[in-house]
């Protein structure tokens, strides 16, 4: 059992805003070095504490357990904001653990992209998605596949020029494989949320996805040499071994920014059904001691300049509608903006995806 941190009392005259994240260092750096100092300067009555629970137990889910326990005993949960998708714990919504978030208490919520909203108890504030990254110096824009079947055709016509990572070694490969699964199950991502345990009939349908992916196995980079991770896949693109990969949008932008990927790398998303991704979601516990502070933070994060920062320093996607941004940013990103970003339940479905892929797509055993 891990021990959850106890929060120090705030300096006199200030109130705490405790934010719980489950995030990589690029995100926590962004909070500690940019967001928190700027917020505390603007709102001098608040002291912001960042608690990152990356890599321990069940992430912020473990912390939600503590909130549930605190609510039952009437104790202070010591949390103002939790980055947590409440759909993962539907019973907490029913029990009234969370505060409803909308334009009445978060004024900037009116500009939020409807596709990013997953629940009235959540507020999205940044997103990322998996898309195709390609070298525009080698592939004409008109040749870039815009649908999944078109991509399969393209890969067969251009053997060795495309690759995706192993699905269990990073989301860039994982969500590409999920897109193949969506392709053969009626392009309806909601199907997979019907029950907690995978439905055997739906699991059987995955075989069709394995057939699709197996059909390009020999045509991917080095006849099915799938790189083991997000960055290894991007490195094959960077050194010109392949001309197209599936990749996380924010990782592509950061790699271009750091000079790992050449500036000729562009991104494209499928227009029929985009690859999965997601928006990071804030949730505010209904019983929080500092509701005003919590709402002030959420609203502040949805301001236009904060959201431009999501694009520029994080390489992520803003949670605001694109018409809220300057024209040149809009055109720079219009080929990748999706109205909907499908999601995937993970958990046991991940196990089905990984096992099926290793046994039926990547395998060296003749089927």
């Amino acid at each position, binding site marked *: 059992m891990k021990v959850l941190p106890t929060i120090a009392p705030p300096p006199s005259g200030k109130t705490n805003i405790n934010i719980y994240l489950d995030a990589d260092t690029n995100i926590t750096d962004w909070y500690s070095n940019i967001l928190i100092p700027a917020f505390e300067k603007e709102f001098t009555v608040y002291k912001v504490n960042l608690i990152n629970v990356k890599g321990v137990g069940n992430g912020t889910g473990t912390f939600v357990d503590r909130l549930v326990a605190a609510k039952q005993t009437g104790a202070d949960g010591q949390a103002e904001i939790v980055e947590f998708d409440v759909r993962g714990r539907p019973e907490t919504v029913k029990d009234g653990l969370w505060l409803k978030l909308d334009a009445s208490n978060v004024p900037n919520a009116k500009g939020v992209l409807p596709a990013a909203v997953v629940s009235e108890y959540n507020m999205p504030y940044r997103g990322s998605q998996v898309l195709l990254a390609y070298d525009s110096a080698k592939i004409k824009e008109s040749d870039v596949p815009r649908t999944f079947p078109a991509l399969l055709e393209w890969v067969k016509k251009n053997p060795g020029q495309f690759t995706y990572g*192993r699905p*269990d070694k990073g989301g860039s490969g994982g969500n590409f494989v999920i897109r193949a699964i969506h392709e053969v199950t009626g392009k309806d991502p909601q199907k997979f949320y019907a029950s907690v345990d995978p439905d055997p009939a739906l699991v059987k349908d995955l075989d069709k996805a394995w057939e699709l992916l197996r059909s390009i196995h020999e045509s991917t980079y*080095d006849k*099915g*040499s*799938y*790189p*083991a991770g997000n960055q*290894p896949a991007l*490195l*094959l693109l960077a*050194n*010109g*071994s392949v001309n197209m990969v599936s990749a996380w949008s924010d990782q592509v932008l950061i790699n271009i920014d750091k000079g790992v990927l050449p500036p000729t790398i562009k991104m494209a998303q499928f227009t029929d059904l985009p690859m999965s991704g997601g928006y990071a979601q804030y949730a505010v516990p209904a019983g929080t001691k500092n509701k005003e502070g919590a709402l002030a933070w959420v609203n502040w994060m949805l301001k236009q300049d904060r959201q431009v920062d999501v694009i520029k320093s994080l390489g992520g996607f803003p949670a605001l509608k694109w018409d809220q941004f300057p024209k040149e940013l809009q055109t720079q990103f219009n080929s990748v903006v999706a109205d909907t970003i499908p999601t995937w339940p993970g958990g*046991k479905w*991940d*196990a089905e995806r*990984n*096992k099926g892929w*290793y*046994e039926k797509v*990547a*395998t*060296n*055993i003749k089927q």
Partner: protein
Amino acid sequence: MLAPRPSSQWRTWLAGYALIAPPLALLALLIFFPAGQAIVRTVMLDQDAGITSGLTLDRYLNFFNDPIARSNLSFTITVTLITVFFQFAVCFPLALYLRFSTSRIAGAVQVLALFPLFVPGVILAFALIRYLGPRGTVDTFLRVVLNYEGFVTPYLRPSGIVFALTRDHIPFTILVLTAGLRQVEDSVIEAARDVGATSLRAFVQIIMPLMQRPLLIVFCLNIIGTFGAFTIPYLLGPAAPQMMGVYMQQTFSEYLDRSGAETQAVISFVLCALVGALYVRTVTRRRGERA
């Protein structure tokens, strides 16, 4: 001379055991006990299914009936044998050179050979990707300088694992082999030379028999280390087939199949234990002779 009193003898005896007790307890608690538990669990009937007791070999039958599991096991054994062969092919001549050369270059070679000891495996794996990978240093050199386009990268292929694991084990192999060779005294070889033995004959009839034990020790430890390798096969190897270390981790945390992973672990453990037994026999026989 006074004979030691019985009580002091008792105290020495007790002190000896007290000194080895903590490591023994650690071994028993952290290694033997969980390993025993794992072995027992793999042959017990599934308790979740409501059956309380009884033995079964189902999990092992499942393993050996699964073509993927079989191919991963045979792949691991093949890669291990090939890798250990290359480790010897590279290191034994080098160790002989280091033992018998007195030049200053030999000292530099020794430092170079031992240097990789200080490089962690994960750094080595990424360095090799940059060096031997597609469009890496070697590929680029061949293309630009020699105009040769046919370089086949070992990255994401079995040869990548063999290459990296061979390189990874060089320092350890050299250390043990040179230590063994230092025990072969110059006078023994000079004596053989005096009665007219050629270098080859001195090698075959004097050095090889004396080197039998260090060679066996290196062989056993390298087999075990290579069989259980994880980082290098994970980063450099193909998606299929996989080495057992990678396969186990995947079965455990990606397929969420705990008992499957445990079965694979027991099979790997038994195979390594066979080699381990050979090692223990080699080492203890040496002790017996000394006494």
